């Protein structure tokens, strides 16, 4: 019964996401455009072009998935609440955990799809060539490493108005991307920014994938920082949820 409930919920959430090309489009258009500009149009003057193309492909994949985790998820959650749909779900026997899991599942499948599209774009535009293990590992890292950002999106989802959520998540998203070295490598940014950036989830998220395409693997320190952010965001979510539901 529980398993079937979960599968039904996941199926419904997946359908909803796949049928909303708007979200998929926006999570792809900007990263792919950036990728095109900074690997084909602007001469970045890097020595190893192949290395840069692979590095920046990871940056843009992570940038896309991080954005959809924070913004798409957050804004959709606010929408569902303001439209009263959440309230309806709360009075049905569906456990809220199943509802929530369904959302995360739909989101993750969408991320998987985004990663595949952006990887394909990198291959087609620049002939980025990685070993099968590198493709697989970096892709999995980007999909799995999105967890802390989904938790952040969930926090955004507690906001009262779609406008606020959209504004706040946009600013957070852009700041995290810039300071985390997703738009340009962190080592060309000022020292202070670098020092802050190293502690941000966005840098550590990108870093895992960057290391994979250089033939390395994600660092334990980075994993711990990401898990730390995940724990903080989840605790905050739990606290806010309790407060909001104790009306």
């Amino acid at each position: 019964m529980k398993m079937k409930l979960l599968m039904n919920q996941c199926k419904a959430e997946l359908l909803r996401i796949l049928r909303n090309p708007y979200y998929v489009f926006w999570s792809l258009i900007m990263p792919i455009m950036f990728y095109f500009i900074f690997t084909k149009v602007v001469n970045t003057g890097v020595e190893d072009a192949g290395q840069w193309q692979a590095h920046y492909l990871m940056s843009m994949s992570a940038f896309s998935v991080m954005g959809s985790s924070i913004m798409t998820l957050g804004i959709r959650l606010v929408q569902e609440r303001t439209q009263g749909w959440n309230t309806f779900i709360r009075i049905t026997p569906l456990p809220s955990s199943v509802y929530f899991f369904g959302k995360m599942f739909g989101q993750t499948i969408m991320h998987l799809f985004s990663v595949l599209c952006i990887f394909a774009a990198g291959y087609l535009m620049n002939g980025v060539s990685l070993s099968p293990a590198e493709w697989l590992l970096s892709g999995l890292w980007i999909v799995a490493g999105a967890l802390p950002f989904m938790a952040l999106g969930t926090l955004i989802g507690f906001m009262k108005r779609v406008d606020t959520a959209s504004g706040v998540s946009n600013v957070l998203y852009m700041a995290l991307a810039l300071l985390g070295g997703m738009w340009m490598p962190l080592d060309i940014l000022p020292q202070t920014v670098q020092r802050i950036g190293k502690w941000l989830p966005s840098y550590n998220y990108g870093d895992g994938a960057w290391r994979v395409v250089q033939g390395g693997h994600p660092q334990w320190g980075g994993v711990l920082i990401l898990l730390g952010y995940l724990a903080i965001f989840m605790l905050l979510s739990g606290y806010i949820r309790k407060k909001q539901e104790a009306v």
Partner: protein
Amino acid sequence: MEHVIEMEQVSKVFHGKRAVDGISFTIGKGSVTAILGPNGAGKTTMLSMLLGLAEPTEGQVRIFGLPPKHDAVRERSGAMLQEVSVMDRLKVHEIISLIRSYYPQPLAEEALYAATGLEAADLKRYAEKLSGGQKRSLGFALALAGNPDLLFLDEPTVGLDTTARRRFWETVRGLAAQGKTILFTTHYLQEAEDIADRILLFSRGALVADGSPEEIKSRLVQRSLSFLPEGDAGELRRHLEQLAVIKEISDRDGRIHVTTDNTDEALRVIYTGGFAVKDVRIDQGRLDAAFEQLTLEPEAVQP
């Protein structure tokens, strides 16, 4: 009789204001009850507490003898709420099948399709593309998805056209005939009077009247007499004003109207006193008037 709903001294305080104030009532199995009251009377707050969406500040709510949030309560009840949109990007039949899957013993899909009143083609449309009234009808079907024993309907017919409204209440009557307990809120007096076998009248967070529509009417409706004056109307009015049994005098359409708590006594006094009147009529007030009276001056009618 089995108590489906028990409210015991329930209060709800919002920002220091008592939205619901010390309400107690029980609702028996198979009854159709209307929670009637103007906007801001505390109807929605009451319903939120019954649904376990809000916790009472004081007092206790029990549904089927259990707290409203209990799984067993969720499985046996259904609700149609106000301001609930539909899940976007799912087709009508997909939403119905999804919500059905939440319940252990759901109603048959065909029965739910029928409850929406939608054409077969509309069932295949995206739910967000339906008109406002059609969405309400879908909301009704979703409330029935679990084949509930207890049904909450919050202002269910707002936004429905006459045909849809009639079909809606026909379905509700059918459900009541099956022994289901139904509680609905409304500010349409006519609906409460036509559908419910019990009315709970709310005003400013308090329960100001509780009874069958007839009881409420007979207890609260103000009666009045009207007649035509014979001779000097001014002098007649001066005499009438001195009678204790008459509360108010007014002129309408050339007739003199007097309101009274006791029409028999008023008639006796008028005839034995030799007042110059003709064409005397006794007017029964309407429930609308009772409603207005109750909700405007709640303290005047408390038992």
